[in-house]
């Protein structure tokens, strides 16, 4: 399925500054695998050492949180938008 993955500002440094990436995938897991295959540096920002999605990164299919769907097995339909939404706490320069 052709889907669009939206990249948040803090992670655009790892996607050659692209704010969205179009790819083909039938589940969320496939989409993220394809994304991190294309942009290797993104991997450690999305997954922890155990290969689990980090707890300060949420993934949505359209406006639904995949934690309340089938997580990485959530099916994607043609034209779905996958959003990566990390926590931000701006302004501060530490």
């Amino acid at each position, binding site marked *: 399925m052709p889907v669009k993955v939206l990249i*948040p*500002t*803090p992670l655009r*440094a790892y996607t050659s500054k692209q*704010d969205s990436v179009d790819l083909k995938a039938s589940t969320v897991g496939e989409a993220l695998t394809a994304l991190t295959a294309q942009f290797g540096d993104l991997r*450690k*920002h999305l997954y922890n050492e155990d290969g689990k999605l*980090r*707890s*300060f990164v*949420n993934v*949505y299919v359209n*406006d*639904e*949180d995949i*934690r*309340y769907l089938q997580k990485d097995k959530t099916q994607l339909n043609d034209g779905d938008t996958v*959003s990566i*939404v*990390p*926590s*931000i*706490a*701006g*302004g*501060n*320069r*530490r």
Partner: protein
Amino acid sequence: MATKTDIASAATENAVTLSKDEILRYSRHLIMPEVGMEGQLKLKRARVLLVGTGGLGAPLGLYLAAAGVGKLGVVDFDKVDFTNLQRQVVFGTKDVGRPKIEAAAERLGNLNPEIQIEPFETQLSSENALEIFRDFDIIVDGTDNFPTRYLVNDACVLLGKPNVYGSIFRFEGQASIFGAPGGPCYRCLYPEPPPPGLVPSCAEGGVLGVLPGIIGSIQAMETLKLILGTGEPLIGRLLLFDALGMKFRELKLRRNPDCPVCGDHPTVTKLIDYVEFCGIRGEEAPAQQTSVPDITPKELKARLDRGDDLYILDVREPHEYQICNIGGHLIPLGDLSKRVNELDSSREIVAHCRSGKRSSEAVEFLRKAGFRKLWNLKGGILAWSDEVDPSVPKY
């Protein structure tokens, strides 16, 4: 469907009235049926606490004071500095160096002398948060760091008070209302903060000046709606704003039954150590720096004057190099692994960045890569400007 909350009507109905001056001041509210006399009196009876008077707190304070929120608490412990003025519109140039709380209270009091401003010149902590929050109906989170954000969230959940949330990064913002009855809290959204190493460093930080004005104004609007009990509050919804694309999006939020704070079986039942929770050890001296050999700006200057062969490695970003530089060779920290072959391990290398944090990571990386003659410029280009060459601008 989100539940409407009507905060002020739950408070004790004091015999509050509006003076003739106040009626004139609030006339554009009073002629709207959605506010009217009843709504304006709710605003006057409302007690709102603003945590932080930074980029978000500035528009929040101005609009909430102007709207006639009767009691406005403000918490901050910082002083106004020049870098604040690009976005913290509650302050003026003459306020630089003054405590933020003092300057903000003066400005807000001048904007609306009819309201009561209660300043708390202190750093919000696990020891004082519950005590400070207790006397307020709504808490507005205008903080800029994770420890305070989790502290505000947990304290609001423990006290059952709504937390009007906003957060910004560069040109992107988030807003929501947490801790409302039946609604989610910040931990339902993000159970844990990012580890410090993965928080974008100062190279990637910064914020477009208008952005906190937009997000802070959204928080102010949601605060007024909560007080008035009107409209659809941003409960159970996360609003995302992308300034570059000028797009608003909305995501669904759910209360997590397994949430450690607001879930069905909470494990966090009192405030904890949030600095530890966020894994931040000491802001002045990052952990790595202790193991990295430092050179002070004065020592470096003396060695350069002696003609020692030192290779100055600047690990900042190209746009920072344009602001100021000390003639170093620019390899941004993020590119170092790819460009390490440009460095000669037989020469002494002095790495520097803005404040010394990124360069300490660079030194650590180079050491692991087999380099031995390494120094980290202590305090970075900021210290160089302070101690050696004041003509180098600070940023």
